Protein backbone atom coordinates (compact mmCIF):
# COMPACT_ATOMS: atom_id res chain seq x y z
CA UNK A 1 0.00 0.00 0.00
CA UNK A 2 1.20 3.44 -0.90
CA UNK A 3 2.11 5.64 2.00
CA UNK A 4 0.64 9.07 2.06
CA UNK A 5 2.25 12.43 2.15
CA UNK A 6 -0.22 15.25 2.79
CA UNK A 7 -0.41 17.83 0.06
CA UNK A 8 0.01 15.45 -2.85
CA UNK A 9 -2.96 13.99 -4.66
CA UNK A 10 -1.26 10.90 -6.06
CA UNK A 11 -1.21 7.62 -4.16
CA UNK A 12 -3.46 8.51 -1.26
CA UNK A 13 -5.53 6.19 0.93
CA UNK A 14 -9.18 6.46 -0.15
CA UNK A 15 -12.21 5.05 1.65
CA UNK A 16 -15.33 4.58 -0.43
CA UNK A 17 -18.82 4.06 1.04
CA UNK A 18 -21.26 2.99 -1.64
CA UNK A 19 -24.09 0.43 -1.49
CA UNK A 20 -24.40 -0.14 -5.24
CA UNK A 21 -21.89 -2.83 -6.16
CA UNK A 22 -21.79 -1.75 -9.81
CA UNK A 23 -21.21 1.92 -9.02
CA UNK A 24 -18.68 1.01 -6.32
CA UNK A 25 -16.74 -1.21 -8.71
CA UNK A 26 -16.56 1.56 -11.33
CA UNK A 27 -15.45 4.15 -8.79
CA UNK A 28 -12.84 1.82 -7.24
CA UNK A 29 -11.43 1.12 -10.72
CA UNK A 30 -11.14 4.84 -11.55
CA UNK A 31 -9.39 5.56 -8.29
CA UNK A 32 -7.08 2.56 -8.55
CA UNK A 33 -6.22 3.53 -12.14
CA UNK A 34 -5.30 7.01 -10.84
CA UNK A 35 -2.78 5.33 -8.50
CA UNK A 36 -4.73 5.45 -5.23
CA UNK A 37 -5.14 2.74 -2.62
CA UNK A 38 -8.85 2.09 -2.17
CA UNK A 39 -10.98 0.45 0.49
CA UNK A 40 -14.68 -0.05 -0.02
CA UNK A 41 -17.59 -0.43 2.41
CA UNK A 42 -21.19 -1.20 1.55
CA UNK A 43 -22.67 1.19 4.11
CA UNK A 44 -21.80 3.99 6.51
CA UNK A 45 -21.51 1.74 9.56
CA UNK A 46 -18.92 -0.55 7.95
CA UNK A 47 -17.10 2.47 6.54
CA UNK A 48 -16.88 4.03 9.99
CA UNK A 49 -15.34 0.84 11.41
CA UNK A 50 -12.79 0.83 8.57
CA UNK A 51 -11.98 4.52 9.06
CA UNK A 52 -11.39 4.00 12.76
CA UNK A 53 -9.34 0.91 12.04
CA UNK A 54 -7.02 2.97 9.84
CA UNK A 55 -7.44 6.67 9.22
CA UNK A 56 -7.89 7.31 5.45
CA UNK A 57 -6.56 10.40 3.64
CA UNK A 58 -9.95 11.09 2.12
CA UNK A 59 -13.49 9.66 2.17
CA UNK A 60 -15.98 9.46 -0.67
CA UNK A 61 -19.50 8.55 0.43
CA UNK A 62 -22.83 7.91 -1.19
CA UNK A 63 -25.88 9.31 0.62
CA UNK A 64 -28.63 6.72 0.19
CA UNK A 65 -27.33 3.61 1.91
CA UNK A 66 -28.86 1.02 4.25
CA UNK A 67 -27.93 0.66 7.93
CA UNK A 68 -26.25 4.10 8.10
CA UNK A 69 -26.83 6.86 5.55
CA UNK A 70 -24.14 9.09 4.10
CA UNK A 71 -25.27 12.01 6.29
CA UNK A 72 -25.11 9.94 9.46
CA UNK A 73 -21.75 8.52 8.48
CA UNK A 74 -20.44 12.02 7.65
CA UNK A 75 -21.63 13.38 11.00
CA UNK A 76 -19.97 10.47 12.83
CA UNK A 77 -16.66 11.17 11.04
CA UNK A 78 -16.81 14.90 11.69
CA UNK A 79 -17.58 14.46 15.36
CA UNK A 80 -14.79 11.93 15.84
CA UNK A 81 -11.70 13.90 16.97
CA UNK A 82 -9.41 11.38 15.29
CA UNK A 83 -11.18 11.62 11.96
CA UNK A 84 -12.73 15.08 11.74
CA UNK A 85 -9.90 16.53 9.66
CA UNK A 86 -10.29 13.83 6.98
CA UNK A 87 -11.91 15.50 3.97
CA UNK A 88 -15.22 13.93 3.02
CA UNK A 89 -16.95 14.14 -0.35
CA UNK A 90 -20.67 13.36 -0.54
CA UNK A 91 -22.04 12.03 -3.77
CA UNK A 92 -25.59 13.07 -4.28
CA UNK A 93 -28.12 13.69 -7.00
CA UNK A 94 -28.65 17.15 -5.47
CA UNK A 95 -32.29 17.22 -6.42
CA UNK A 96 -33.30 19.44 -3.52
CA UNK A 97 -31.63 22.58 -2.02
CA UNK A 98 -32.14 21.05 1.42
CA UNK A 99 -29.60 18.39 0.44
CA UNK A 100 -26.91 21.10 0.66
CA UNK A 101 -28.02 22.11 4.14
CA UNK A 102 -28.09 18.50 5.24
CA UNK A 103 -24.59 18.10 3.81
CA UNK A 104 -23.37 21.21 5.62
CA UNK A 105 -25.05 20.13 8.81
CA UNK A 106 -23.40 16.75 8.54
CA UNK A 107 -20.06 18.51 8.06
CA UNK A 108 -19.38 17.39 4.49
CA UNK A 109 -16.50 19.16 2.77
CA UNK A 110 -17.61 18.71 -0.80
CA UNK A 111 -20.38 17.66 -3.10
CA UNK A 112 -20.11 15.75 -6.31
CA UNK A 113 -23.35 15.14 -8.14
CA UNK A 114 -24.16 11.84 -9.79
CA UNK A 115 -23.62 10.97 -12.54
CA UNK A 116 -20.12 12.41 -12.21
CA UNK A 117 -17.23 12.90 -14.59
CA UNK A 118 -14.29 10.85 -13.19
CA UNK A 119 -11.84 13.72 -13.91
CA UNK A 120 -14.06 16.14 -12.04
CA UNK A 121 -14.13 13.87 -9.00
CA UNK A 122 -10.35 13.46 -9.09
CA UNK A 123 -10.02 17.26 -9.36
CA UNK A 124 -12.22 17.77 -6.30
CA UNK A 125 -10.14 15.26 -4.36
CA UNK A 126 -6.91 17.05 -5.32
CA UNK A 127 -8.11 20.48 -4.23
CA UNK A 128 -9.39 19.13 -0.90
CA UNK A 129 -6.10 17.38 -0.19
CA UNK A 130 -4.19 20.54 -1.15
CA UNK A 131 -6.02 22.69 1.39
CA UNK A 132 -6.39 20.48 4.45
CA UNK A 133 -8.68 21.52 7.23
CA UNK A 134 -6.99 22.20 10.48
CA UNK A 135 -8.01 20.06 13.41
CA UNK A 136 -9.00 23.13 15.25
CA UNK A 137 -10.80 24.86 12.45
CA UNK A 138 -13.05 27.44 13.92
CA UNK A 139 -16.62 26.34 14.35
CA UNK A 140 -19.61 28.62 14.12
CA UNK A 141 -23.31 27.98 14.43
CA UNK A 142 -25.21 29.37 11.49
CA UNK A 143 -28.94 29.68 11.23
CA UNK A 144 -30.12 29.01 7.69
CA UNK A 145 -33.69 29.14 6.31
CA UNK A 146 -34.46 27.01 3.30
CA UNK A 147 -37.89 26.35 1.87
CA UNK A 148 -39.59 27.72 4.97
CA UNK A 149 -37.55 25.51 7.34
CA UNK A 150 -34.89 26.71 9.74
CA UNK A 151 -31.65 24.79 10.15
CA UNK A 152 -28.90 25.29 12.69
CA UNK A 153 -25.70 24.40 10.96
CA UNK A 154 -22.39 23.83 12.68
CA UNK A 155 -19.53 24.18 10.29
CA UNK A 156 -16.08 25.64 9.84
CA UNK A 157 -15.61 28.60 7.48
CA UNK A 158 -13.26 26.76 5.17
CA UNK A 159 -15.66 23.83 5.06
CA UNK A 160 -18.61 26.05 4.21
CA UNK A 161 -16.62 27.78 1.54
CA UNK A 162 -15.43 24.51 0.00
CA UNK A 163 -18.89 23.07 0.00
CA UNK A 164 -20.52 26.13 -1.50
CA UNK A 165 -17.86 26.46 -4.18
CA UNK A 166 -18.26 22.79 -5.02
CA UNK A 167 -22.01 23.17 -5.35
CA UNK A 168 -21.52 26.30 -7.42
CA UNK A 169 -19.03 24.54 -9.69
CA UNK A 170 -21.49 21.72 -9.93
CA UNK A 171 -24.24 24.10 -10.91
CA UNK A 172 -22.01 25.65 -13.57
CA UNK A 173 -21.15 22.19 -14.95
CA UNK A 174 -24.83 21.27 -14.99
CA UNK A 175 -25.65 24.56 -16.65
CA UNK A 176 -23.10 23.86 -19.37
CA UNK A 177 -24.62 20.44 -19.90
CA UNK A 178 -28.03 22.09 -20.17
CA UNK A 179 -26.75 24.61 -22.72
CA UNK A 180 -25.28 21.78 -24.79
CA UNK A 181 -28.54 19.83 -24.53
CA UNK A 182 -30.43 22.96 -25.50
CA UNK A 183 -28.29 23.38 -28.58
CA UNK A 184 -28.94 19.79 -29.57
CA UNK A 185 -32.65 20.38 -29.02
CA UNK A 186 -32.54 23.47 -31.14
CA UNK A 187 -30.82 21.54 -33.96
CA UNK A 188 -33.43 18.79 -33.63
CA UNK A 189 -36.19 21.39 -33.68
CA UNK A 190 -34.79 22.90 -36.89
CA UNK A 191 -34.68 19.46 -38.44
CA UNK A 192 -38.25 18.81 -37.29
CA UNK A 193 -39.41 22.08 -38.80
CA UNK A 194 -37.72 21.13 -42.04
CA UNK A 195 -39.39 17.71 -41.99
CA UNK A 196 -42.71 19.35 -41.21
CA UNK A 197 -42.34 21.63 -44.18
CA UNK A 198 -41.59 18.65 -46.43
CA UNK A 199 -44.53 16.77 -44.96
CA UNK A 200 -46.89 19.64 -45.48
CA UNK A 201 -45.65 19.90 -49.06
CA UNK A 202 -46.39 16.21 -49.57
CA UNK A 203 -49.80 16.69 -47.97
CA UNK A 204 -50.56 19.50 -50.37
CA UNK A 205 -49.56 17.24 -53.23
CA UNK A 206 -51.84 14.49 -51.95
CA UNK A 207 -54.81 16.80 -51.53
CA UNK A 208 -54.16 18.26 -54.98
CA UNK A 209 -54.21 14.77 -56.51
CA UNK A 210 -57.20 13.80 -54.41
CA UNK A 211 -59.09 16.85 -55.64
CA UNK A 212 -58.19 15.88 -59.21
CA UNK A 213 -59.48 12.36 -58.58
CA UNK A 214 -62.71 13.68 -57.08
CA UNK A 215 -63.17 15.92 -60.13
CA UNK A 216 -62.55 12.95 -62.44
CA UNK A 217 -65.02 10.82 -60.50
CA UNK A 218 -67.62 13.56 -60.62
CA UNK A 219 -67.12 13.93 -64.35
CA UNK A 220 -67.55 10.16 -64.70
CA UNK A 221 -70.66 10.24 -62.52
CA UNK A 222 -72.05 12.95 -64.78
CA UNK A 223 -71.47 10.75 -67.84
CA UNK A 224 -73.24 7.97 -66.00
CA UNK A 225 -76.21 10.18 -65.12
CA UNK A 226 -76.67 10.74 -68.86
CA UNK A 227 -77.79 7.08 -68.95
CA UNK A 228 -80.79 7.94 -66.76
CA UNK A 229 -84.15 9.35 -67.85
CA UNK A 230 -84.06 13.02 -68.80
CA UNK A 231 -85.66 15.45 -66.34
CA UNK A 232 -88.58 16.02 -68.70
CA UNK A 233 -88.97 12.34 -69.62
CA UNK A 234 -92.64 11.58 -70.30
CA UNK A 235 -94.73 9.13 -72.29
CA UNK A 236 -97.99 9.78 -74.10
CA UNK A 237 -100.11 7.12 -72.42
CA UNK A 238 -98.21 6.34 -69.26
CA UNK A 239 -96.95 8.00 -66.14
CA UNK A 240 -93.42 7.24 -64.98
CA UNK A 241 -91.50 7.59 -61.73
CA UNK A 242 -88.03 6.41 -60.80
CA UNK A 243 -85.34 6.45 -58.16
CA UNK A 244 -81.67 5.69 -58.58
CA UNK A 245 -79.25 5.63 -55.63
CA UNK A 246 -75.68 4.52 -56.32
CA UNK A 247 -73.93 3.13 -53.20
CA UNK A 248 -70.68 4.75 -54.32
CA UNK A 249 -70.07 7.75 -56.53
CA UNK A 250 -70.06 5.45 -59.54
CA UNK A 251 -72.50 2.62 -59.98
CA UNK A 252 -73.09 -0.57 -61.93
CA UNK A 253 -76.84 0.10 -62.12
CA UNK A 254 -78.68 2.24 -64.60
CA UNK A 255 -82.23 2.53 -65.82
CA UNK A 256 -84.18 4.37 -68.46
CA UNK A 257 -87.57 4.74 -70.11
CA UNK A 258 -88.20 6.52 -73.41
CA UNK A 259 -90.38 6.50 -76.53
CA UNK A 260 -89.02 4.30 -79.33
CA UNK A 261 -91.53 5.60 -81.87
CA UNK A 262 -95.02 7.09 -81.74
CA UNK A 263 -96.58 3.91 -80.37
CA UNK A 264 -93.84 2.15 -78.42
CA UNK A 265 -91.90 2.84 -75.27
CA UNK A 266 -88.74 1.04 -74.17
CA UNK A 267 -87.88 0.58 -70.50
CA UNK A 268 -85.13 -1.22 -68.66
CA UNK A 269 -83.10 -1.69 -65.51
CA UNK A 270 -79.52 -2.92 -65.94
CA UNK A 271 -77.33 -4.15 -63.09
CA UNK A 272 -73.63 -4.71 -63.81
CA UNK A 273 -72.04 -6.98 -61.18
CA UNK A 274 -69.91 -5.22 -58.58
CA UNK A 275 -69.84 -1.46 -58.19
CA UNK A 276 -67.39 1.41 -58.43
CA UNK A 277 -65.22 2.35 -61.39
CA UNK A 278 -64.96 -0.97 -63.34
CA UNK A 279 -68.72 -1.64 -63.15
CA UNK A 280 -69.49 1.97 -64.01
CA UNK A 281 -67.26 1.88 -67.12
CA UNK A 282 -69.04 -1.28 -68.23
CA UNK A 283 -72.44 0.34 -67.53
CA UNK A 284 -71.58 3.36 -69.68
CA UNK A 285 -70.35 1.08 -72.47
CA UNK A 286 -73.54 -1.01 -72.37
CA UNK A 287 -75.64 2.16 -72.13
CA UNK A 288 -74.38 3.38 -75.53
CA UNK A 289 -76.09 0.41 -77.18
CA UNK A 290 -79.40 0.97 -75.36
CA UNK A 291 -80.29 4.27 -77.00
CA UNK A 292 -83.61 5.18 -78.67
CA UNK A 293 -81.78 7.35 -81.20
CA UNK A 294 -81.55 5.62 -84.55
CA UNK A 295 -77.84 5.02 -85.06
CA UNK A 296 -75.25 2.44 -85.98
CA UNK A 297 -74.84 1.63 -82.33
CA UNK A 298 -78.43 1.38 -81.15
CA UNK A 299 -79.59 -2.18 -80.56
CA UNK A 300 -83.13 -0.95 -79.81
CA UNK A 301 -84.06 0.82 -83.03
CA UNK A 302 -82.74 0.90 -86.57
CA UNK A 303 -83.71 2.39 -89.89
CA UNK A 304 -86.08 0.02 -91.68
CA UNK A 305 -85.94 -0.59 -95.45
CA UNK A 306 -89.11 1.49 -95.88
CA UNK A 307 -87.49 4.46 -94.13
CA UNK A 308 -89.51 3.91 -90.96
CA UNK A 309 -88.03 3.10 -87.56
CA UNK A 310 -87.78 -0.63 -86.94
CA UNK A 311 -87.96 -1.67 -83.29
CA UNK A 312 -85.95 -4.69 -82.20
CA UNK A 313 -87.77 -7.20 -80.01
CA UNK A 314 -86.53 -7.51 -76.39
CA UNK A 315 -85.27 -11.03 -77.18
CA UNK A 316 -83.19 -9.69 -80.08
CA UNK A 317 -81.75 -6.97 -77.86
CA UNK A 318 -80.70 -9.43 -75.16
CA UNK A 319 -79.25 -11.89 -77.66
CA UNK A 320 -77.24 -9.12 -79.33
CA UNK A 321 -75.95 -7.77 -76.03
CA UNK A 322 -74.86 -11.25 -75.00
CA UNK A 323 -72.95 -11.56 -78.25
CA UNK A 324 -71.22 -8.22 -77.64
CA UNK A 325 -70.43 -8.55 -73.94
CA UNK A 326 -68.88 -11.91 -73.20
CA UNK A 327 -67.51 -11.78 -69.66
CA UNK A 328 -63.85 -12.49 -70.48
CA UNK A 329 -63.39 -9.12 -72.09
CA UNK A 330 -64.36 -7.41 -68.85
CA UNK A 331 -62.53 -9.65 -66.42
CA UNK A 332 -65.51 -11.37 -64.91
CA UNK A 333 -67.98 -8.49 -65.11
CA UNK A 334 -71.43 -9.47 -66.33
CA UNK A 335 -74.84 -7.87 -66.08
CA UNK A 336 -78.45 -8.67 -65.55
CA UNK A 337 -81.19 -6.76 -67.35
CA UNK A 338 -84.91 -6.58 -67.62
CA UNK A 339 -85.88 -4.92 -70.88
CA UNK A 340 -89.42 -4.36 -72.04
CA UNK A 341 -91.18 -2.79 -75.01
CA UNK A 342 -94.64 -1.42 -74.21
CA UNK A 343 -97.16 -0.89 -76.99
CA UNK A 344 -98.81 2.28 -75.71
CA UNK A 345 -102.19 1.98 -77.50
CA UNK A 346 -102.87 -1.63 -76.42
CA UNK A 347 -100.89 -2.13 -73.21
CA UNK A 348 -99.01 -5.16 -74.55
CA UNK A 349 -95.66 -5.47 -72.80
CA UNK A 350 -93.02 -7.71 -74.39
CA UNK A 351 -90.07 -8.28 -72.12
CA UNK A 352 -86.95 -10.31 -71.57
CA UNK A 353 -84.94 -11.00 -68.44
CA UNK A 354 -81.30 -11.91 -68.34
CA UNK A 355 -80.99 -13.26 -64.81
CA UNK A 356 -82.76 -10.16 -63.48
CA UNK A 357 -85.29 -9.98 -60.63
CA UNK A 358 -88.90 -10.43 -61.75
CA UNK A 359 -90.98 -7.39 -62.62
CA UNK A 360 -93.88 -6.47 -60.40
CA UNK A 361 -97.40 -5.87 -61.69
CA UNK A 362 -99.86 -4.02 -59.50
CA UNK A 363 -103.37 -4.03 -60.98
CA UNK A 364 -105.77 -1.17 -60.25
CA UNK A 365 -107.65 -3.72 -58.18
CA UNK A 366 -106.28 -7.07 -57.05
CA UNK A 367 -103.09 -8.60 -55.76
CA UNK A 368 -99.50 -7.84 -56.63
CA UNK A 369 -97.99 -10.27 -59.16
CA UNK A 370 -94.37 -11.12 -59.94
CA UNK A 371 -93.56 -11.83 -63.58
CA UNK A 372 -90.16 -13.31 -64.27
CA UNK A 373 -88.58 -14.67 -67.40
CA UNK A 374 -85.81 -17.20 -67.66
CA UNK A 375 -82.46 -16.27 -69.12
CA UNK A 376 -78.81 -16.26 -68.07
CA UNK A 377 -77.10 -13.02 -67.15
CA UNK A 378 -75.53 -11.27 -70.16
CA UNK A 379 -71.98 -12.44 -70.68
CA UNK A 380 -72.24 -15.88 -69.09
CA UNK A 381 -72.97 -18.26 -71.91
CA UNK A 382 -71.95 -17.52 -75.50
CA UNK A 383 -74.47 -17.79 -78.34
CA UNK A 384 -77.53 -18.28 -76.20
CA UNK A 385 -80.98 -17.23 -77.45
CA UNK A 386 -83.15 -15.28 -75.02
CA UNK A 387 -86.81 -16.18 -74.66
CA UNK A 388 -89.31 -13.35 -74.64
CA UNK A 389 -92.51 -13.13 -72.62
CA UNK A 390 -95.60 -11.02 -72.97
CA UNK A 391 -97.73 -9.38 -70.30
CA UNK A 392 -101.07 -7.77 -71.21
CA UNK A 393 -101.72 -4.69 -69.09
CA UNK A 394 -105.15 -3.32 -68.39
CA UNK A 395 -105.73 0.41 -68.00
CA UNK A 396 -104.56 1.66 -64.58
CA UNK A 397 -102.03 -1.17 -64.15
CA UNK A 398 -98.71 -0.30 -62.63
CA UNK A 399 -95.47 -2.15 -63.27
CA UNK A 400 -92.20 -1.84 -61.37
CA UNK A 401 -88.74 -2.77 -62.54
CA UNK A 402 -85.94 -2.79 -59.94
CA UNK A 403 -82.41 -4.03 -59.28
CA UNK A 404 -81.51 -6.67 -56.71
CA UNK A 405 -80.31 -3.78 -54.54
CA UNK A 406 -84.00 -3.67 -53.49
CA UNK A 407 -84.81 -7.33 -52.76
CA UNK A 408 -81.29 -8.27 -51.62
CA UNK A 409 -80.89 -5.20 -49.39
CA UNK A 410 -79.43 -6.59 -46.13
CA UNK A 411 -80.38 -5.50 -42.63
CA UNK A 412 -77.80 -5.51 -39.83
CA UNK A 413 -78.29 -9.28 -39.33
CA UNK A 414 -77.67 -9.93 -43.05
CA UNK A 415 -81.34 -10.70 -43.61
CA UNK A 416 -82.46 -9.70 -47.14
CA UNK A 417 -85.55 -7.51 -47.60
CA UNK A 418 -87.03 -10.10 -49.98
CA UNK A 419 -89.86 -10.20 -52.51
CA UNK A 420 -92.54 -10.53 -49.84
CA UNK A 421 -91.70 -7.18 -48.21
CA UNK A 422 -91.41 -5.58 -51.64
CA UNK A 423 -94.88 -6.79 -52.61
CA UNK A 424 -96.33 -5.61 -49.29
CA UNK A 425 -94.78 -2.16 -49.61
CA UNK A 426 -95.88 -1.63 -53.20
CA UNK A 427 -99.31 -3.25 -52.70
CA UNK A 428 -99.91 -1.23 -49.54
CA UNK A 429 -99.26 2.06 -51.30
CA UNK A 430 -101.51 1.32 -54.27
CA UNK A 431 -103.94 4.15 -53.40
CA UNK A 432 -101.17 6.76 -53.54
CA UNK A 433 -99.81 8.45 -56.67
CA UNK A 434 -97.13 6.48 -58.57
CA UNK A 435 -94.36 8.93 -57.65
CA UNK A 436 -95.10 8.46 -53.93
CA UNK A 437 -95.09 4.67 -54.18
CA UNK A 438 -91.58 4.72 -55.68
CA UNK A 439 -90.39 7.13 -52.99
CA UNK A 440 -91.98 4.93 -50.29
CA UNK A 441 -90.22 1.83 -51.63
CA UNK A 442 -86.84 3.56 -51.59
CA UNK A 443 -87.49 4.69 -48.03
CA UNK A 444 -88.38 1.12 -47.03
CA UNK A 445 -85.09 -0.13 -48.50
CA UNK A 446 -83.08 2.57 -46.76
CA UNK A 447 -84.84 1.92 -43.44
CA UNK A 448 -84.19 -1.80 -43.76
CA UNK A 449 -80.44 -1.22 -44.19
CA UNK A 450 -80.05 0.99 -41.11
CA UNK A 451 -77.60 1.91 -39.75
CA UNK A 452 -75.08 1.02 -42.47
CA UNK A 453 -77.20 2.09 -45.43
CA UNK A 454 -77.53 0.15 -48.73
CA UNK A 455 -74.36 -1.71 -49.79
CA UNK A 456 -75.56 -2.09 -53.37
CA UNK A 457 -76.91 0.31 -55.96
CA UNK A 458 -80.68 0.73 -55.72
CA UNK A 459 -82.76 1.27 -58.90
CA UNK A 460 -86.54 1.49 -59.06
CA UNK A 461 -88.57 2.28 -62.15
CA UNK A 462 -92.37 2.52 -61.93
CA UNK A 463 -94.87 2.94 -64.79
CA UNK A 464 -98.64 3.34 -64.79
CA UNK A 465 -100.43 2.63 -68.06
CA UNK A 466 -103.21 5.17 -68.72
CA UNK A 467 -104.35 4.94 -72.35
CA UNK A 468 -106.26 7.95 -73.61
Amino acid at each position, binding site marked *: MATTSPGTAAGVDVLVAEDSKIQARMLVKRLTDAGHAVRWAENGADALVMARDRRPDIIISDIEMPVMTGYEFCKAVKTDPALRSVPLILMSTLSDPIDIIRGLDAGADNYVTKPYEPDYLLGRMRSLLDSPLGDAAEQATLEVAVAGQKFNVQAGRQQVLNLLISTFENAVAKNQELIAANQELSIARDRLQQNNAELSQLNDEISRRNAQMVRDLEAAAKVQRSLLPADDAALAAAEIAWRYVPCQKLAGDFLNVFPLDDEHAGLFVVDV*SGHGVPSSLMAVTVGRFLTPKVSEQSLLVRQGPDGRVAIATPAEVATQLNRLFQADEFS*GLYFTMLYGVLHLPTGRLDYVSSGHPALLRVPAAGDVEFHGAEG*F*PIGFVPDVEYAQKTLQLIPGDRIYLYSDGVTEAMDKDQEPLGEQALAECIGGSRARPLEETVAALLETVEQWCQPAGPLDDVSILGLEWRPT
Partner: protein
Amino acid sequence: MDQFRRIQTGKTGDIHMVLFKDKKILDDTVLDEIKQEINTLLGKCTGPDVLLDFGNVEFMSSAMLGLLGQLHRKIVTGHGRLKMCNIRPEIFQVFKLTNLDKLFSIHKDAPTALATFT
Protein backbone atom coordinates in the same frame (compact mmCIF):
# COMPACT_ATOMS: atom_id res chain seq x y z
CA MET B 1 -50.88 -28.77 -47.12
CA ASP B 2 -52.28 -25.36 -46.27
CA GLN B 3 -50.64 -23.50 -49.12
CA PHE B 4 -53.58 -21.18 -49.82
CA ARG B 5 -55.24 -18.49 -47.73
CA ARG B 6 -58.73 -18.61 -49.18
CA ILE B 7 -59.15 -22.18 -50.36
CA GLN B 8 -58.37 -25.63 -49.05
CA THR B 9 -57.53 -28.11 -51.75
CA GLY B 10 -57.44 -31.87 -52.12
CA LYS B 11 -57.72 -34.55 -54.78
CA THR B 12 -60.03 -37.53 -55.18
CA GLY B 13 -58.68 -39.48 -58.12
CA ASP B 14 -58.26 -36.87 -60.84
CA ILE B 15 -60.88 -34.56 -59.38
CA HIS B 16 -59.66 -31.32 -57.82
CA MET B 17 -61.60 -30.55 -54.64
CA VAL B 18 -61.74 -26.88 -53.65
CA LEU B 19 -63.24 -25.84 -50.31
CA PHE B 20 -63.77 -22.12 -49.79
CA LYS B 21 -62.49 -21.16 -46.34
CA ASP B 22 -64.33 -17.85 -46.04
CA LYS B 23 -67.74 -17.39 -44.42
CA LYS B 24 -68.23 -14.21 -46.39
CA ILE B 25 -67.19 -13.76 -50.00
CA LEU B 26 -68.19 -10.13 -50.38
CA ASP B 27 -65.36 -7.71 -51.00
CA ASP B 28 -63.23 -7.47 -54.10
CA THR B 29 -59.97 -8.30 -52.29
CA VAL B 30 -61.26 -11.69 -51.16
CA LEU B 31 -62.65 -12.31 -54.62
CA ASP B 32 -59.35 -11.47 -56.32
CA GLU B 33 -57.44 -13.75 -53.96
CA ILE B 34 -59.82 -16.65 -54.57
CA LYS B 35 -59.44 -16.12 -58.29
CA GLN B 36 -55.64 -16.07 -58.09
CA GLU B 37 -55.49 -19.14 -55.88
CA ILE B 38 -57.75 -21.18 -58.15
CA ASN B 39 -55.71 -20.06 -61.14
CA THR B 40 -52.54 -21.16 -59.37
CA LEU B 41 -54.09 -24.51 -58.51
CA LEU B 42 -55.41 -25.23 -62.00
CA GLY B 43 -52.75 -23.25 -63.85
CA LYS B 44 -51.37 -25.91 -66.15
CA CYS B 45 -54.36 -28.27 -66.32
CA THR B 46 -56.40 -28.36 -69.49
CA GLY B 47 -60.00 -29.32 -68.92
CA PRO B 48 -59.69 -30.50 -65.32
CA ASP B 49 -62.53 -31.97 -63.26
CA VAL B 50 -63.26 -29.60 -60.39
CA LEU B 51 -65.61 -29.76 -57.42
CA LEU B 52 -66.25 -26.53 -55.51
CA ASP B 53 -67.44 -26.96 -51.92
CA PHE B 54 -69.42 -24.00 -50.51
CA GLY B 55 -69.88 -25.60 -47.06
CA ASN B 56 -68.36 -22.64 -45.18
CA VAL B 57 -69.90 -19.88 -47.27
CA GLU B 58 -72.74 -18.00 -45.56
CA PHE B 59 -72.71 -14.80 -47.60
CA MET B 60 -71.69 -14.29 -51.18
CA SER B 61 -71.86 -11.27 -53.46
CA SER B 62 -73.15 -11.52 -57.00
CA ALA B 63 -69.65 -10.62 -58.22
CA MET B 64 -68.61 -14.14 -57.14
CA LEU B 65 -70.98 -15.45 -59.82
CA GLY B 66 -68.86 -13.68 -62.43
CA LEU B 67 -65.81 -15.53 -61.17
CA LEU B 68 -67.69 -18.85 -61.28
CA GLY B 69 -68.84 -18.03 -64.82
CA GLN B 70 -65.27 -17.46 -65.98
CA LEU B 71 -64.09 -20.63 -64.29
CA HIS B 72 -66.98 -22.57 -65.80
CA ARG B 73 -66.21 -21.37 -69.29
CA LYS B 74 -62.49 -22.06 -68.96
CA ILE B 75 -63.06 -25.61 -67.72
CA VAL B 76 -65.82 -26.47 -70.19
CA THR B 77 -63.79 -25.12 -73.11
CA GLY B 78 -61.06 -27.61 -72.20
CA HIS B 79 -63.68 -30.40 -71.94
CA GLY B 80 -63.35 -30.58 -68.18
CA ARG B 81 -66.23 -30.59 -65.72
CA LEU B 82 -67.15 -28.11 -62.97
CA LYS B 83 -69.51 -29.11 -60.19
CA MET B 84 -70.57 -27.44 -56.97
CA CYS B 85 -71.88 -28.76 -53.65
CA ASN B 86 -72.89 -27.90 -50.08
CA ILE B 87 -74.61 -24.68 -51.10
CA ARG B 88 -76.90 -23.45 -48.33
CA PRO B 89 -80.39 -22.18 -49.28
CA GLU B 90 -79.55 -18.45 -48.89
CA ILE B 91 -76.62 -18.84 -51.28
CA PHE B 92 -78.60 -21.03 -53.64
CA GLN B 93 -81.08 -18.17 -53.89
CA VAL B 94 -78.35 -16.06 -55.55
CA PHE B 95 -77.94 -18.76 -58.21
CA LYS B 96 -81.68 -19.14 -58.65
CA LEU B 97 -82.38 -15.41 -59.02
CA THR B 98 -79.96 -15.20 -61.91
CA ASN B 99 -81.03 -18.52 -63.46
CA LEU B 100 -77.50 -19.81 -63.00
CA ASP B 101 -78.78 -22.82 -61.08
CA LYS B 102 -79.62 -24.08 -64.56
CA LEU B 103 -76.15 -23.41 -65.94
CA PHE B 104 -74.09 -24.89 -63.14
CA SER B 105 -74.09 -28.48 -61.98
CA ILE B 106 -75.11 -28.16 -58.33
CA HIS B 107 -75.28 -31.07 -55.88
CA LYS B 108 -76.32 -31.65 -52.29
CA ASP B 109 -72.98 -32.79 -50.86
CA ALA B 110 -69.50 -33.89 -51.86
CA PRO B 111 -70.16 -37.69 -52.13
CA THR B 112 -73.24 -37.10 -54.32
CA ALA B 113 -71.30 -34.70 -56.51
CA LEU B 114 -68.27 -37.00 -56.78
CA ALA B 115 -70.52 -39.88 -57.86
CA THR B 116 -71.70 -37.85 -60.87
CA PHE B 117 -68.19 -37.42 -62.27
CA THR B 118 -67.93 -41.07 -63.37
